[in-house]
């Protein structure tokens, strides 16, 4: 098994293992939208088309939030993210459905998904 010995730095993935390529997720295109005042934290831009880099595990929403925090969020992270999840009062819709129906943080993102974050804290 020379290939396994060569790829010592990636002990989990063995070239011989079936479905190795499938596990290595392709980069995902997502359409993110921010509304209800949340766009203020993102430079006032409501629509973002982002490309998540490929990574070993498929992307889930928890990782997406961490990615948004490092890459998109311009200021005041505590107004958007609280710990692992969004701040209470921020509604998340995945493909126009409540994320509670999709499993909240554990939902696995797919290509061309539409994720909307609406802040409900600025009433009307």
């Amino acid at each position: 098994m020379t290939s396994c010995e060569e790829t010592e730095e990636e002990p989990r993935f063995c070239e011989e293992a079936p479905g190795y390529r499938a596990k290595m997720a392709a980069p995902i295109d997502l359409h993110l939208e921010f509304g209800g005042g949340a766009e203020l934290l993102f430079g006032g831009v409501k629509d973002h088309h982002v490309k998540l880099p490929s990574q070993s595990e498929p992307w889930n929403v928890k990782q997406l939030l961490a990615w948004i925090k490092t890459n998109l969020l311009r200021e005041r992270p505590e107004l958007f993210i609280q710990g692992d999840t969004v701040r209470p009062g921020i509604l998340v819709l995945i493909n126009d459905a409540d994320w509670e129906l999709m499993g909240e943080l554990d939902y696995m993102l797919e290509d061309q998904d539409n994720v909307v974050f609406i802040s409900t804290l600025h009433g009307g």
Partner: protein
Amino acid sequence: MCQVDEDDHHAQLETKAVLSVSQKCMKCKEGSAVLIIRVGDAFCGNCFREYFVHKFRAMLGKNRLIFPGEKVLLSVSGGPASSALLSQVQEGLRRETSKKLRFVPGIIYVDEGAACGQSLEERGEVKSQLESIFRASGFPFYIVHLEEVFNLPSSVLLCASSASDRRNESYKEAVDGFIQRASSGTQSETRQGSISYKEVQTLLSELSTQEWSGEGGTVTNRSPPFTPEQTEAVRTLLASVKTLTAREELLKTLRQHLILHTARVRGYSKVMMGDSCSRLAVKLLTNISLGRGAFLAMDTGFSDPRYGDIAIVRPMREYSSKEIAFYNRMFRVPSVFTSALDTKEPEKASIHRLTESFISKLQADFPSTVSTIYRTSEKLNTACPRPIADGELTEKCLLCLCALDTGAEEATAFRATLISENLSRNRMPDTIPALGVAKQQCCASGGEQKESCGDRVDGCHSVDRTSFTPELQTLLCYSCRLIIKDMTSVNSIPQYILSEAERRKRRAQMKEEIQDFLLNPENDAGEVTVS
């Protein structure tokens, strides 16, 4: 061993997630669910829409306060709840005659850009976005700027008597009469011999529609109806308030006065506000913290009767902010986001902010928090005001027009706070009223020219300004006193408030002087006619 347990949990969670994706709507059992509201109720898109619309109409129908043909002013701030309110009213008026909503709406928007430090371009942009939304609705709309608060007359602080003829006619009779009239003759041209009061009203409202939408069309071309000095005056006024809490309350009061004045001038008898359930829950707890516990029923109830002739109604009070946000998103209700005073402020910047964050965090773990608070607020009722024979005017707070709750009886906790406050300032409690009275006498010249004292405006005011703070306090309820206490100087308060305060003081003084000569008021002499 721990790892084995975690794997089990993880597998369980995943299976649960898979089940919810394909969950069916709990109402029609057919459509796939898109939304969870309340604790665990999943709805599909169509059922949710029906539920939303039905709730609005049920709210109006249950309370039976809005009579057919009545003119109702919708106060729209551009935010999600008031935009949803506007769309519900539009939807309701579009239906077939039997199920149509029966009132005549108008829209008011208060431009508070001066308070939030927005530039004229930003305000103009927001205004043009909102104008296009309002024009699409077809209702007459009024855009009022916060700077116009300096042009308000002091009569806005008076509580007018309600139109008593409405009360005599019961709601059911009014609706039946309206339906009969609507079905008997067409609404537009054919007029029978006798024109009823309501038909005249609808005619008049149509007239004002024509006049105003013409004016509304050119408002963007005209220069704004306020001067930079007034904008600066608004900024100075709000900057003179030390805490964000008091600033927000003051802004709220000024906004209410502007809306009230517009409603009175334009002939509207009801104002609809877009306060949602979550908003009202926050407001309830905040008002308790601000010392407005006595007025909770008026501040958070469905109808607010404190202004007498104009009733404030809150038909959105059963919608949680999640439902409103979902409805706006799914049915593309246009709304415009405007920054408020507390945008991007830290959590502890003001009492409102802190309460909001407290409740939303609690709601995340206990989803019935907001509805429990809401149900508690539903149980509060407005107490019937004690009939006061005379001096009705002096019994209301100057700013919020609620009944004064600061009677200076000896053994109240309020009196204790006053005494301790005076002692901490090393001042004897007796000198404060004397200070105010002495200054008043010098300008009132013996007591005959009470009402005309206002003629010598310059002389009076320059003397009174410095000692006005203690005098203003006695005309205010407890929470409004706290607002004024937080201000560094009362000079920047708009003129209408100061002149009304002066007028009340003079009346009280005059009454005190002629007290001995007054006959004992009989019970039915207590009907004060304020036209």
